[in-house]
């Protein structure tokens, strides 16, 4: 048995290196000024070159107003927050209904709510662009947020449904027995208990939106830049190990990294976390 644990550790370590290590050369590249073939390390670093170039390079370029990183970052954040809030708001009643009720056609409803994940985005995207042009919301924030709802909503419904399924309906019934209205029972009892799950759904929705490329590319028509569309252009025109592209890759990866750390902190049974907060509230 001991030997199998050892080899498991080896397999996992190799995998961690394979998937984590590729980021390292980009960290190095992002601080480089010159990294010619066939050097294994940059020939000149960013801090050596400062002041010798007519315009800023590398990180200095990315953080200067001419790069457009600021607006792209703000657009990604705004669209991501709006999309995840809207998706959770729309998904919440559906998830609650799916978790609590059995009804005819339920399987069909569940299937329909998942289909957007499987149907090619290009098929939805092209039709959506024409529809949005007609509605006058192509190339607007509204248009992009609505477009991002399509890949986000299925996941929000899915996550929230499982959150409600794990929640014992007894608590709600007790609140109702004690005289709370349906709305009160939901707001004061159910909602605080599903809060960790809701936060997970919001984070996940944000992450999906922040990573979408094709739908943004189609609907924005190049007028609104987000981090992924900006990265696309840099990869298309940049050389391998180019400092600016490398820096941008690290910035584009940041939301995912934050998500991973936060979700690791949040893991554990969301309902259990909800209950402990309730107990703490009661103690105060």
């Amino acid at each position, binding site marked *: *048995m001991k030997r*199998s644990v050892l080899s*498991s*550790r080896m*397999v*996992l370590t190799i*995998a*961690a*290196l394979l998937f*984590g290590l*590729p*980021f390292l*050369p*980009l960290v190095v590249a992002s601080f480089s000024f010159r990294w010619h*073939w*066939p*050097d*294994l390390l940059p020939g000149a670093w960013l801090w050596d070159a400062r002041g010798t170039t007519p315009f800023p390079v590398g990180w200095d370029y990315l953080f200067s107003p001419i790069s457009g990183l600021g607006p792209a970052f703000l657009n990604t954040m705004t669209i991501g927050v709006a999309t995840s809030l809207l998706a959770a708001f*729309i998904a919440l*009643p*559906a998830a*609650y*209904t799916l978790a609590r*009720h059995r*009804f005819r056609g339920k399987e069909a409803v569940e299937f*329909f709510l998942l289909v*957007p*994940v*499987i*149907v*090619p*985005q*290009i*098929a*939805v995207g*092209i*039709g*959506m662009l*024409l*529809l949005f042009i007609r509605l006058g919301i192509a190339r607007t924030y509204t248009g992009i947020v609505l*477009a991002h*709802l*399509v890949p986000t*909503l299925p996941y929000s419904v899915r996550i929230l449904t499982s959150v409600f399924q794990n929640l014992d309906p007894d608590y709600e019934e007790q609140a109702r027995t004690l005289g709370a209205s349906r709305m009160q029972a939901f707001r004061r009892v159910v909602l605080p208990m599903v809060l960790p799950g809701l936060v997970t759904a919001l984070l996940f929705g944000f*992450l999906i939106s922040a*990573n979408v*490329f*094709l739908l943004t590319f189609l609907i924005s028509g190049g007028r609104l830049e987000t981090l992924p569309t900006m*990265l*696309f252009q*840099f*990869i298309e025109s940049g*050389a*391998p190990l180019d400092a600016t*592209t490398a820096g941008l*890759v690290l910035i*584009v990866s940041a939301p*995912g990294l934050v998500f*991973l750390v936060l979700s*690791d902190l949040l893991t554990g049974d969301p309902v259990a976390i909800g209950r402990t907060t309730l107990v703490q509230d009661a103690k105060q």
Partner: protein
Amino acid sequence: MNKARRRQLSIFLGLAPALSVLTVLFVGPLALALIQSLGYAPIFGVREFPTLRFYTAVLGSTRFRLAFWYTMLYALVPTVLSTIFGTWLAVAARARMRGVRFLSFFVRLPLVVPYLVGAALVVALFANGGLVARVLFAVGIIQNTGDFPRILFSAGGWGIMLVYLFKQVPFTFVVVSSVLAGIGPELQEAARTLGASPWRAFRHVVLPRIFPGIVTSSLLVFAFNFQSYEIPLLLGPGFPGTLPVEALRRFQLPTIARRPEAMAYVMIITTLSGGILFLYLRAYRRWERSRGGV
């Protein structure tokens, strides 16, 4: 209002927002693409509804056939490989040992970054002037950038498939891990105690229980690869593009009267993808039933 009616009303009100949003934003665009592909597209000056002209134009072209086979190749190879390696990793990570959480953090990292990040990493490592070529030069295996095999921008699609693997081995890992967490280690340990080899314990005890999870994850991976746009566009050869790349090229044709071909393309892509997934699921169900019958 009686109780049953109230219940029906609350089910209806609960589902209405999500269903109507998806109907407008998801079904609407697909319906629009469908009628345009059949010849009703006044904005492109096409009013021939109903016609199959655009479908025959697409299906009859060599470009389409080539694009189809390359799309299948780029979608299928990473699906098979990431299913095998992702499952293997998930099983390995289940062993009770210190550091699993820490190590699995790095394995899950690719999952949360855009595919474009994967593309940038593959370019940095595997371009002809990339880091791997430099290491090979340093140890004397190659003499110049031209000696390094063309991994990017070639019809073999190695670059494309590497990006998919970078994202999808971790995806399979996470899906299978969560299924494994649900079944607990006791049965496998019992099998091992009774003398089964690790492989036999996996094959006969663990695998049947995680199989539905493996089917689901491979299905999602294939569905994604089949419709991916930006990765084949950036890392594939210029010609032929994959089906989605060709579809958008049709949409950008200077002759706007031919643009409904793009709609025919996306309808064909959707039908093919749906058809393949359906056949896959049906084969799985049949196999499952035949196994249950024994």
